[in-house]
């Protein structure tokens, strides 16, 4: 169990910066997610921590020890690969035992440790099988056991659930988190699946173009995205751009077409350009003729439904308001969903409008 720290990590491929001066601290026992689109640098960071990639600048510390000069096999890490990379010519037992055998551990001790791991991943009795005789979920668990049996300082996960189908992935998420808690190991988890990152991680870092955009607990990053990129990458967002206007007691921007949006966040002085984001599920829809009287400071836009996407438990509406479209999620609770052409009023409280930094996506 260790803290992991990277400081000023930089790696370029040609003129493209895969990592651009990235610094992050991974706390002891923490399950930390690196989230971002492909090519954003999250995998490069993981492979630098493992030792497969030599960074051009910056340092990697495990518990205060600089490991940058250590080769992979001396770093004492555990890693689960995207396609598990189980050794096809070895049995489940020998796969899990591999890290202990190359360390020269006595056979009796190896047997005991592997047996413990098999119990932990609930695969006791399958130790003589070959990897190809296991299901995807079982292979995944063997890969996890193999990575943990040596009691490494840090567990690195490179999209370990990507190859599983949706239902199995959800089961494995729960199991992965449970095993990680039981072992208490510092874990760095690379994924491009935002839902998976939110479900599993204590904290996440959002990557874009080799830089860290935002770090924090998933709920914090989701509720208070720092930039337009973070707002769009983690979940969906309706964005407004406009100029701050002076209103007594309220923070309001004017964004053309007669639309004014109120926020609970502090705004720059009047005239300053600013971007605001609001999550689609924060918006309520009302029929145009029976909308309740709004409270002061509440946002209120009239529009017309242009598109209805029915997806079982929820419904996504696209709604035309002057000069733009809004996206709205609603739980599927009403007897009759709105249909394209219906006139509606969209409302949401000012505190759900978040000031975000403008960033190209």
């Amino acid at each position, binding site marked *: 169990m260790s803290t992991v720290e990277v400081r000023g990590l930089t790696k370029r491929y040609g003129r493209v910066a895969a990592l651009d001066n990235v610094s992050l601290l991974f706390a002891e026992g923490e399950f930390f997610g690196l989230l971002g689109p492909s090519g954003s640098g999250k995998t490069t960071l993981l492979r630098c921590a*493992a*030792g*497969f990639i030599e960074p051009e600048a910056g340092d990697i510390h495990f518990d205060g020890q600089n490991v940058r000069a250590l*080769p*992979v*096999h*001396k*770093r*004492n*890490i*555990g*890693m689960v*690969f995207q*396609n598990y*990379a*189980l*050794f*096809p*010519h070895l049995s489940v037992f020998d796969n899990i035992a*591999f*890290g202990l055998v*190359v*360390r020269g551990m006595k056979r009796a001790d190896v047997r005991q440790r592997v047996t413990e791991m098999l119990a932990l991943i609930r695969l006791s009795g399958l130790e003589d099988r*070959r990897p*190809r005789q296991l299901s995807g979920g079982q292979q995944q668990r063997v890969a996890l056991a*193999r*990575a943990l049996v*040596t009691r490494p300082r840090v567990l*690195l996960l490179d999209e370990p659930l990507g190859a599983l189908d949706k239902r199995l992935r959800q089961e494995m998420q729960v199991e992965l988190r449970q095993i990680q808690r039981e072992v208490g190991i510092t874990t760095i988890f690379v994924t491009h699946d935002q839902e998976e990152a939110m479900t599993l991680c204590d904290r996440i870092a959002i990557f874009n173009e080799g830089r860290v955009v935002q770090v924090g607990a998933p709920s914090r990053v989701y509720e208070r995205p720092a930039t337009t990129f973070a707002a769009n990458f983690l979940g969906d967002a309706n964005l407004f751009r406009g100029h701050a206007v002076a209103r007594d007691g309220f923070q309001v921007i004017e964004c053309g077409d007669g639309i004014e949006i109120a926020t609970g966040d502090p705004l720059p002085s009047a005239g300053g350009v600013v971007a605001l984001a609001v999550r689609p599920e924060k918006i309520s829809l009302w029929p145009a003729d029976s909308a309740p009287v709004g409270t002061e400071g509440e946002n209120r836009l009239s529009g017309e439904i242009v598109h209805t996407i029915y997806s079982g438990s929820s419904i996504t509406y696209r709604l035309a308001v002057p000069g733009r479209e809004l996206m709205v999620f609603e739980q599927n609770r009403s007897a009759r969903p709105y249909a394209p052409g219906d006139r509606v009023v969209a409302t949401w409280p000012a505190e759900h409008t978040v000031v975000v930094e403008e960033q190209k996506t």
Partner: protein
Amino acid sequence: MERVGGWLVRGYLGLVLVFLYLPIAVMIVMAFNRSPLYELPIVFDTVWFQALAKNERLLTAGFNSLWIAIANTIIATALGTMAALAFQRYSFRGRTLMQLLLFPPITIPWLIIGTSMLVMFFWLGIGRGLHAMLLGHVALSIPYVIVVVGARLKSFGTALEEAAATLGANPWQTFWRISAPVMAPGVVAAALFAFAVSFDQFVISYFLAPPGVSTLPVEIYSAIRKGFTPEVNAISTIIIVVSMGLMLLFARLYRFGGER
């Protein structure tokens, strides 16, 4: 309709196999026929195998072929496997070009390669002989070995070796415990290829054989020019049985080698 289709498919595939095997079957049958003139009915006899045992020329040529093929297999497989590892596991400038340059020697007709080797070996003073044949066979086999072993290495990628490193295995342990067993089926296949390229080789052996020295294909060729004897059928039958055995052995090895 489906049953008719099934019969048609089976009939067609049966004809293809008859086309492939009929000449071989005739040869094997005639190797056990007493008549030297292929007369029917067949009278079972091992007379041609007994004659073969006394045919010094054919036997010497057979042993020459065997020794060259074995030496070639060992040398070409070792060199080619190392080259395949270098191509697959290291990145360096000019790798793609060097890999592309492996293919022309496979496609250039053996006749032309044989001529060029004869010219060069004379020019360098290497001359003709079994040593020259071995050099020629190794040069011919290496590209096949690199391609076959390389394909195997490529299909597994580097993930297994990376996984071994994260588990604490040093490069030596990683090679012997992971890379070697995983690529073993490819190496065995490449070795069989190298053996076949050498053992079958006629053109280059013919060009590089000095008077009085020959390999089995060269000797069979001169034997049937002088007048066909069923002893050739006998030795061919032995070769067929041995190569079938090698095929079966390979199939078993491949299964145990842990293919995916």
